[in-house]
C-alpha cells in the first residue's frame, strides 16, 4: 500500500491504476537483505550492548555478569570520565571548524575554478584513503617530530619556544583529526557547490551585490546542505576517534574513545565500557539534534 502512496507522491498521475496488490510484497523482499543486515549487525549488537551496560559492575569473566539493571553504571561512568567527554567534544568541534574553513575554499575551487584539473584534484582529496588510517596517522608523527623541519622552522620563527614541541600536544591531536577527516568535509561541500548555478551569482552581481554579500546571501545558503552534511560527517567520527589521541597525544589528550577501548580490551570492565558507548552515542545524537535544529535545515535532511 505504501508503495502506491509514494508512487502517487512522486508525480505519477492520480488517475493511474494502483499497482497490483499481489506485488505489494516486492519492495519488502528487496528490503530484506539490507534489513537483515541491519538487524544482525546493528540492531542485535545494540540491544546486547544496551543490556551489557546494565550488568552488575562487580561481575567478572569467571563468575559471569548478572543482569541487575544497574542504571547506576551510567552516572558512575559519566562522573569518572566527564573530562574525557568534554575534551572529545571540544577537539571534535575545533577540528570540524578548521575542516570547514579549509574545506570550503578547496571545494569551491575544485567545483568552479579547477577546469580540466577537477578530476585530478578530486582524486587528490580521495587518494589518502588508499593507505590505512593508522599509517597516515603514524606519518604525522614524522612530520611533527621534535627534530623535524616543521618544528625547527617554527622555533626559528619563535612561534614555538626553544623547547617547544608539537608532538604530544593538543595541537597535534587536532591537526591529526583535521587531516584525517578533511575529505569527509570536502566531498559533500563539493557535491553541493558543484550544483550551484553560476547564473544566480551573475544575477546577484546585476543586482549590485558585492562579492561578499553574494557569498553570504547566495552561495552559502545554497550550499548549506553540503555544510551540514560535511560538519556532521566530520564531527561525529572525530568525537569517537581514539587513534589520533593515542598516537599523537599523551594521556592528557586522551579522548573518550581511548577510555572505551581500554575498558573493553584492557580493563575488561564490560558494563562500564558499554555504558560509556551508549553515553557517547547519546551525547553525539543530542549535539547533532540541537545543531540541525539551530541551523534550520531540517527540510534539507
Amino acid at each position, binding site marked *: 500500500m505504501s508503495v502506491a502512496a509514494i508512487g502517487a507522491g512522486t508525480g505519477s498521475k492520480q488517475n493511474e491504476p494502483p499497482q497490483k496488490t499481489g506485488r505489494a510484497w516486492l519492495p519488502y523482499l528487496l528490503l530484506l537483505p539490507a534489513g537483515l543486515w541491519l538487524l544482525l549487525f546493528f540492531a542485535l549488537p545494540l540491544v546486547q550492548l544496551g*543490556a551489557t551496560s546494565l550488568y552488575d559492575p562487580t561481575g567478572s569473566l569467571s563468575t559471569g555478569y548478572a543482569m541487575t539493571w544497574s542504571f547506576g553504571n551510567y552516572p558512575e561512568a559519566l562522573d569518572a570520565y566527564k573530562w574525557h567527554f568534554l575534551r572529545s567534544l571540544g577537539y571534535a568541534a575545533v577540528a570540524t571548524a578548521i575542516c570547514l574553513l579549509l574545506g570550503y575554499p578547496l571545494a569551491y575551487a575544485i567545483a568552479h575554478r579547477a577546469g580540466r584539473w577537477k578530476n585530478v584534484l578530486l582524486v587528490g582529496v580521495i587518494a589518502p584513503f588508499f593507505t590505512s588510517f593508522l599509517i597516515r596517522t603514524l606519518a604525522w608523527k*614524522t612530520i611533527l617530530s621534535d627534530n623535524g623541519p616543521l618544528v625547527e622552522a617554527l622555533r626559528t620563527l619563535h612561534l614555538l619556544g626553544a623547547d617547544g614541541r608539537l608532538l604530544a600536544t593538543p595541537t597535534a591531536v587536532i591537526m591529526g583529526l583535521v587531516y584525517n577527516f578533511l575529505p569527509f568535509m570536502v566531498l559533500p561541500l563539493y557535491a553541493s557547490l558543484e550544483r550551484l548555478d553560476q547564473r544566480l551569482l551573475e544575477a546577484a552581481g546585476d543586482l549590485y551585490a558585492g562579492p561578499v554579500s553574494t557569498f553570504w546571501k547566495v552561495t552559502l545558503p545554497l550550499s548549506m546542505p553540503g555544510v551540514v552534511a560535511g560538519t556532521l560527517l566530520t564531527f561525529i567520527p572525530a568525537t569517537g576517534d581514539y587513534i589520533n589521541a593515542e598516537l599523537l597525544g599523551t594521556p592528557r589528550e586522551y579522548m573518550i574513545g581511548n577510555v572505551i577501548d581500554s575498558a573493553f580490551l*584492557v580493563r575488561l570492565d564490560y558494563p562500564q565500557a558499554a555504558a560509556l558507548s551508549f553515553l557517547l552515542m547519546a551525547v553525539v545524537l543530542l549535539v547533532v539534534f540541537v545543531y540541525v535544529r539551530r541551523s534550520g535545515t531540517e527540510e534539507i535532511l
Partner: protein
Amino acid sequence: MRKTPRAPMSPEASAVISTLSLSRRTLMRGTLASSALVAAGGALAACGTKGQTQTAESCVSEDVSGTEKTLAFSNWPLYIDVDENDESKRPTLDGFTAKSGIAVTYTEDINDNNEFFGKVQNQLAACQPTDRDLIVLTDWMAARLIRLGWLQKLDRAKMPAVEKNLLPSLRNRTFDPAGEYSVPWQAGLTGIAYNGDVTGEIRTVDELLTRADLKGRVTALSEMRDTIGLLLQSNGHDPSHFTAAQFDDALAKLQKAVDSGQIRRFTGNDYTTELAGGDIAACMAWSGDVYQLSADNEKVRFVVPESGVILFSDDLQVPNKAAHKGNAEALIDYYYDPAVAAEVALYVNYICPVEGARAEAEKIDPELAANPLIFPDETVTSKAKGFMALDEATEKAYEQKFRAVVGA
C-alpha cells in the same frame, strides 16, 4: 489510503511529505517491531552472562593428530626465522615438516595480547574451536587463559627436549608451576633504553623519572606489569612477590612523574620510532626492540638498571578444542632442539629460552651469540624477575588503578 495534501511542491518534497503522512501506521508497525526486538533481545540478555570458566571435564577436546598431519600455528609478526632470499620460506618450520611430515599453516595474526583475547574470547568461553592449534601469548595472558581453563594440558613426557633444555629461570612459574599449559617461545627483558645522540647515559629508573633534562622526553609502557614491575624494583621491592601497599607506592611514584610532565606518554611497541628519531630521549623498553634499533644506530642502548629488570616470555599454548595437540607437542619439542632454537634466536633477537642454543649459535654467528640481549649472562639473569601471578579480582583492581594514572 490517505489523500496527500496538494501544495505547490517539488516532486521530491511531496514524495517525502506523502511518505510521512502515511507513516503513522508504518510508524506504529515499526514501533511494535522494534519493541518486539528489544523484548526478544532483552529476554536474551536479561539473564546476563554465565561464568566463562571451563574445566577439563566441561570442555573435552579430541586429538586427531594420529590421522591428520596438520597444524595451525598462530604467532606474532617477525617472530620466526625467514629465508634471506625468499621471505615466504621459513627454514626451521620447513625443517619440522620435512622431519615429521606435519604440514604447518603458519599465520601471523597476533598483534596484541588484549586484542587477540577479544578475538577468541567468545569461542573459548563457549568451548568452541578457534581453528588454531597453537598460539603464542605473553605470560600474563597465558596466566589468564589458564585461570579460565581455556587451555589444553600438555603432555610433558612427549616433549623431552623441553624438560632437558628449558632455562631454569623460566621454570616453576607461579601461574603454571609444572609447565603443563605453557612453554616459552621467546623471552625478553623490560628495562630502560636511551638514545645517546640526545642524552648522556642513564642508569636507573629514578633518573628516568626525575632528571630535569629529560622532562617531557620520557615514555613508559602501557602494559602494567612492565611499568609497575620496574617501579617496584626501583623501590627495592620484588615484582614476583609484592604487597598491595608496595603496589600503591610504585603507582604513587608513577603518578608523580606523570603529574610533573616528566612522562610524555605510555606506549606499546611504537616507542621505537620516537626513540630512534630522538623525539624521546629515554624510555622503558623491551630488549628485542632495542637490539634491532641499535643495529641501525649503536648509540641507542639498552640498560639493565641496578635495581633489576623484568623477565617476560611469550608462551606457546594449545587452546581448548584444538584438534592437533599431539602435532603441537611435536613442534614444541622440535623447537627445543638447541640447533633449531639457535637459528630462530639469531633471527628474532629476543632471549632464547633454550639452554645449549648459545653454543650452537656460536657456530653460526659468534658475534651475535656473544650478545647479552639474546643469550644473557649470569649478571643479567640474576637481576631478572617475572611479575607475580594475580588472581582475577586483584588483576582488575590493579589494572583499574594503573589505567587511572595512564589516563584512560
